[in-house]
């Protein structure tokens, strides 16, 4: 039941997005930059394709909503319990914090911290292996990118 509700909510959001896109398309799509008479006249106005995409989105979302009562398959969502949601929620927060920390602390430092914290909180309890991975992987990547590929990675406040 919960998973069907989730499916319905997702389809409803996409339906609303499609309808909104159809209405706002002309506002967010500017006119021709290079108006070539005879050519751009028949090449469809700039808002045509966005509106076509919006119609397809809305139609597909409506089809999913209308066929919801007929669906019998068990969705992966229905197998989730509260501990799973908690794990995923913490994972999302953790990954977000890591991505934000890359710019602040630097790639190597933030990656090492992320590997240590994420692995420890995930239940893996071998400190030496974790520490070795946390040092070797980001440092090696930094060397490969810096000296092998000549691409800079963020250094941030630390490294």
């Amino acid at each position, binding site marked *: 039941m919960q998973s069907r509700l989730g499916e319905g909510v997702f389809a409803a959001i996409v339906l609303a997005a*499609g309808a909104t896109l159809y209405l706002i398309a002309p506002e967010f799509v500017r006119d021709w930059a290079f108006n070539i008479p005879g050519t751009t006249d028949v090449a469809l106005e*700039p808002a045509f394709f966005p509106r076509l*995409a919006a119609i397809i989105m809305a139609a597909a979302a409506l089809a999913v909503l209308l066929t919801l009562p007929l669906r019998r398959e068990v969705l992966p*969502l229905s197998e989730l319990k509260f501990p799973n949601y908690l794990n995923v929620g913490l994972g*999302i927060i953790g990954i977000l914090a890591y991505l934000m920390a890359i710019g602040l602390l630097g790639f190597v430092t933030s990656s090492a911290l992320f590997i240590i914290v*994420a*692995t420890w909180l*995930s239940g893996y309890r071998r400190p030496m292996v974790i520490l070795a991975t946390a040092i070797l992987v980001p440092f090696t990547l930094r060397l490969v990118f810096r000296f092998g*590929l000549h691409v800079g990675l*963020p250094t941030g406040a630390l490294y």
Partner: protein
Amino acid sequence: MIDDLLSAASLVLGWQTFAAIVLGTVIGLVIGAIPGLTATMGMALLSPFTFFVEPLIGIPFLIGLYKGGTFGGSVSAILIGTPGTASNAATLLDGYEMRKRGEAGKALYGALHASLIGDMFGTLALIFIAPLLALIAIKFGPHEFFALVVFSMTMVCYVSGNSLSKGVLAASLGLFFALVGSDPIGGTPRFTFGLNDLGGGINVIALVTGVFGITEVLIQMETFGRRGRGVPDLAGVVLGRAHIALSTLIGHVRNIVRSSLIGTLIGALPGIGAETSSWVAYGLAKRASKTPERFGSGDLDGVLAPEAANNAVCGAAMIPMLVFGIPGDIVTAILMSALIAQGLQPGPFLISEHRDVIYGLFIAVLMATVALYVFGRLTMSWWVRILSIPRPLLYSMVVVFCAVGTFSVQSSAFDLAVMFAFGILGYVMRKLDMAVAPMVLAFVLSKIMEESLRRGLVQSDGSFLDFFQRPIAAFFLVLTGLVLISFALVEWRKRERNEGASGEDHQRSAEERE
């Protein structure tokens, strides 16, 4: 053609290309073998690394990774009963049963040899058919390209997942995201909301890394946090006789050749991937077998057929990608992005304008086939150890690779945000049993679709009828319509059967209550 191959050989037969192929193949084998890591994810994570090296080093690396990843998935399918990639799901049915009987080594070696032969078929098809097809593709106009793209997108929606409406919904999301950036004809900004970072559109690597990398990490994280979990039980795995006799293989040659041809044919059709080919090959092998009742309980043919087919797809799927610029599946879509990043625009003129490079790639594809066999054999004894890598450690590294790969493309922190957002979207879609492949392919194909539609209209003076008056375009559009109708009929019949079955259950339980 032989002259072209010989002259390209001098570009490719150097230690750097060789090292790139070996490294890509070995990494692909490892990635494919670990459940949850797929060749697609590996390509998404590692393709940015190739943007900064020569095309004949970077692209062969990805090709090796592709082939290694495709075979590598059979290792976990056979050893732990979990396919490493979707295209190895058919291998599991008989491969895992053989492992239970102590014949894991025979299954693995059989899979390796079948993969080698299938791969060779696909590679030869690529080398000989692609240049010929390019001569025909040059005559394709925007009408034909539009029809081919619509057909490809429909096929992707058809083969991905169980529901056409969900597949189309996913594809429409891809079309929507592809709108961001600039109008392909007029050149004006579109849906950038004033953000400079969106001026060039959404970065395809950020999208792909998000939906295949971050999404998979979130899915794996659902079951983390309990001590001792995250490592598959490999106790008692006995490889058995890690060898397969030539006479045994010869006895199965008809199955292997048929499956290789199926994989080659299906792989060459845009929009259909290795997963479909492996199931079709399995089904036909069972039908052709003298002992079909043994399929599913450890028949070697049940391992050889899908493995030959899914590796044959590797070379063949590159044909529509190189010749038409229409990727056959997600992996070739990523390969196409890598080619474009190297200044090689796939399409009918690619082979004629970059003859040496393309024929060099053909030779690299052949070298990758050989590397797959050699390193597949050499690494047989490592698999049990590789599959024992703890998941928490592995997936934390995956996140780091996702971040560094995505950031390195444009040195943009905004891309990291895009990757994160698509990771969450991909997770929601997977939980709602919505395939993400249609979304990604529609995103990649959207620009070609829009450009060819609008250029076609310019050529035909605004008339849509021209799309049906040109024979090749009409053929693909009619075929698309037939596929949609057939899928709708299949879904309707399935629903009727389910309702009939549930009606009988209700009747039976009512009778029992009486």
